[in-house]
């Protein structure tokens, strides 16, 4: 290879890093090859809750100067159970599954879990990048399709990027549109209607519903000095349509005893949740990448706010510790804190006026998620890399409502621990 070609490739690498699209290929990769990343992730929560196996494969190929295509396939297979929104109680509790035909009973003191929503998801995405106007700007067009038994998601996106200042600065503007539809087992539950005793019918509002999500993002990536790069993004997102979780309920308790009230006829003491049909979100994201003598620090901060009252802060930190010969260790720390949605409740009191919206879904509550992880990677042969990564994710919930009566005896906001282990293999195919 001539020395001129090497210099040109190094400059191409330099600009590609700034423009930040996908993994930068090694300088001596085979021409016309697919740059393939593959991985398999194993995910497991405590106490018989959700487990998942997720294989993924993604390939990028350069078609011409500055023109790239990426294809990605993800499979996501879930088993286990997830909280149904009702809380533990000193009395035994009986629920009806979403089809309305079968009952399941939870022992006193146990957190009510339901395994109905879990199955396999397949997601396919593709993107195409090409220069536009001149060598200083480009556009990336993307599409995605995701399918599981009760949910379909279809989306498109466009991202325009332009370099300035000797390629030290890149501005970007991106637009994304998604259309999701849900066809839950048993149909769409009537918001705030009661869950009914198994076999006595169901309170339903049709078989399916949908929502649309519009995302807009402005970004700037800036070289700060020879060792430091920063990125700032401002995101605006608007969702309109059905956002309830059709499988989640809220316990109706007696205002004195704190126990779920007795069934009234066929109506069990649980109401289907009700969320607003619009949601407007904003995010501020800041990332810094800094090269030390050998190692690299990668740290980011994200602030999220929306009109549901959910404010959150995320700090994500990776430290790449070079071991030599292309091997590295990468510790990872992540800290996330979330304020509860305005309409988040632990339970509803029988006889009290119903709020306009309510949900007991723990994911809308007040909590802190802490993650600690470690990754090890090593080169295999000339152009391949093997990696293994393990993480522990710990979610600690805070109480939002004051416990009443029997509620004091139970953990109304149980913590969740999750463990992941992932094996990855990157290689070149063809060419």
């Amino acid at each position, binding site marked *: 290879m001539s020395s001129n070609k090497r210099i040109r490739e190094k400059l191409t690498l330099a600009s590609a890093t700034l423009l930040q699209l996908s993994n930068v290929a090694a300088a001596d990769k085979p021409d016309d090859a697919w740059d393939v990343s593959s991985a398999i992730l194993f995910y497991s929560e405590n106490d018989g809750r959700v487990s998942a196996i997720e294989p993924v494969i993604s390939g990028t190929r350069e078609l011409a100067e500055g023109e790239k295509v990426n294809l990605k396939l993800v499979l996501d297979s879930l088993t286990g159970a997830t909280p149904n929104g009702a809380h533990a109680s000193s009395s035994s509790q009986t629920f009806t599954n979403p089809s309305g035909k079968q009952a399941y009973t939870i022992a006193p003191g146990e957190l009510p879990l339901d395994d109905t929503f879990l199955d396999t998801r397949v997601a396919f995405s593709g993107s195409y990048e090409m220069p536009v106007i001149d060598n200083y700007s480009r556009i990336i067009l993307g599409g995605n399709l995701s399918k599981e038994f009760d949910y379909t998601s279809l989306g498109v996106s466009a991202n325009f990027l332009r370099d300035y200042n*000797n390629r030290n600065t890149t501005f970007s503007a991106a637009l994304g549109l998604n259309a999701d539809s849900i066809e839950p087992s048993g149909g769409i539950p009537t918001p705030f209607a009661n869950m009914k005793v198994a076999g006595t019918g169901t309170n339903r509002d049709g078989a399916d519903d949908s929502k649309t999500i519009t995302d807009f993002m402005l970004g700037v990536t800036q070289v700060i000095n020879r060792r430091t790069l920063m990125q700032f993004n401002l995101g605006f997102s608007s969702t309109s349509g059905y956002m309830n979780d059709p499988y989640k309920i809220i316990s109706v308790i007696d205002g004195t005893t704190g126990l779920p009230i007795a069934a009234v006829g066929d109506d069990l003491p649980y109401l289907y949740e009700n969320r607003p049909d619009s949601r407007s979100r904003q995010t501020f994201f800041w990332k810094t990448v800094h090269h030390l003598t050998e190692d690299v620090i990668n740290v980011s901060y994200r602030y999220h706010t929306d009109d549901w009252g959910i404010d959150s802060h*995320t700090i994500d930190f990776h430290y790449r510790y070079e071991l030599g010969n292309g091997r590295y260790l990468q510790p990872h720390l992540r800290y996330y804190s979330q304020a509860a949605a305005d309409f988040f409740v632990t339970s509803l009191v029988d006889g009290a006026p119903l709020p306009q919206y309510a949900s007991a879904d723990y994911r809308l509550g007040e909590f802190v998620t802490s993650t600690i992880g470690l990754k090890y990677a090593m080169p295999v042969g000339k152009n391949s890399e093997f990696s293994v990564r393990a993480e522990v994710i710990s979610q600690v919930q805070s109480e939002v409502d004051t416990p009443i009566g029997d509620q004091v005896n139970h953990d109304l906001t149980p913590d969740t621990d999750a463990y992941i282990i992932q094996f990855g293999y990157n290689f070149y195919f063809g060419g």
Partner: protein
Amino acid sequence: MFKLLLVIPLMLLSACTTVQPWEKDLLAKPSMALVTSEIDNALDEHIYFSKEASMGGQGVGGGGCGCN
């Protein structure tokens, strides 16, 4: 809070030096990419999307699922 955060990039951007193309040796390294593993990033984003009520910040698109 949101408007206050916008001040940070403006302050930092004024402290930059212009780096010439031949000085971009370190910046060109794969370890200096903003996202060094797209797959790790996408898998993590999906996990946290299923467990938390916030999403996004890094880009648009990506698709949804029934997991949230």
